[in-house]
């Protein structure tokens, strides 16, 4: 029986923290990509939005939308690239988020559709984050590198992890 759901690589942030989590030299041998991540940042907040950058792009060709349980999501912004969430420094100690980011047809030359969902639980009746998001990238290049970056310029803390899987449809 073929196994077409393969771990490409994993990253665990070390003791110094990291300003981004970067997957590079992604091969074109799969149909879709899936990132499973568990994240926490040093931001003085309960949670932090996580941006995604593809191929080191500087001019973002993104359109996105998300819904969260704690606030109203931003809508249909042309540079909107939030795909996940992370616990922040003000959330319960040692608590990390849990997120999936699915990148459909990442080798396409006609744009990519991205589906994200995540939770940053905090054992609190008032502060948590539970979100779903959708993004479209009109940049036509195949995806060969992916970066996850905390919104606002903060860093991921030690033990944040991200796993990149490749999925083939044949």
């Amino acid at each position, binding site marked *: 029986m073929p*196994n*077409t*759901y393969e771990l490409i690589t994993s990253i665990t942030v070390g003791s110094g923290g990291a300003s981004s989590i970067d997957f590079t030299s992604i091969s074109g041998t799969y149909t879709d990509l899936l990132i499973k991540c568990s994240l926490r940042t040093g931001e003085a907040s309960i949670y932090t939005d996580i941006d995604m950058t593809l191929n080191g792009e500087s001019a973002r060709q993104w359109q996105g939308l998300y819904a969260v349980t704690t606030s109203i999501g931003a809508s249909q912004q042309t540079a909107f690239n939030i795909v996940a969430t992370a616990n922040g420094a003000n959330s319960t100690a040692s608590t990390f988020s849990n997120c999936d980011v699915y990148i459909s047809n990442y080798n396409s030359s006609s744009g990519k559709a991205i*589906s994200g969902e995540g939770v940053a639980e905090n054992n609190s009746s008032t502060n948590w984050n539970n979100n779903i998001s959708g993004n479209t990238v009109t940049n036509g290049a195949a995806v060969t590198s992916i970066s996850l970056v905390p919104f606002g310029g903060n860093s991921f803390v030690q033990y944040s992890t991200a796993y990149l899987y490749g999925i083939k449809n044949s």
Partner: protein
Amino acid sequence: MAAGSTYTPIATTTLASSTASYTFSSIPSTYTDLVVVVNATTAAGSDLTYRVNGDTGTNYSSVYLYGTGSTPGSARSLNASIGYTDYYGTPGTTPSVQIINFMSYASTSVYKPVLSRANRPSSGVDLTISLWRSTAAINSITLTGQTSNLLTGSTLTLYGIAAA
């Protein structure tokens, strides 16, 4: 899922022409769950709906959580003759990517829960939980653009996941 687990492509298609629906048939019962990944467009905007085993009875219900850029909301559909996989994240002239999970599909003891995520950033993001009220094992799934055809180039892939 850890490497080494099974996530097996059963069937895939890229539509060569505009079509109202596509059916995955003769689905083997050798897996635990099924996942359908859809990346689809329609000319006029349309919900993506499903029927299982060709069942046209009023055996489907769906509950939605959605976001459109304003206040997130919820809705539901009861005793319907079709199941829905989306609410606002529907396929339109821009693509909707949908990941649809059919749980315990081979069971002959339980009704079948269906979990789906649908996104179209120009319209909405949805989390849908639906139910097919039948204990029959699922052997076919038909996906339909309810009011507008699925356009050429839309892709649909069916995966099987085995727990062991």
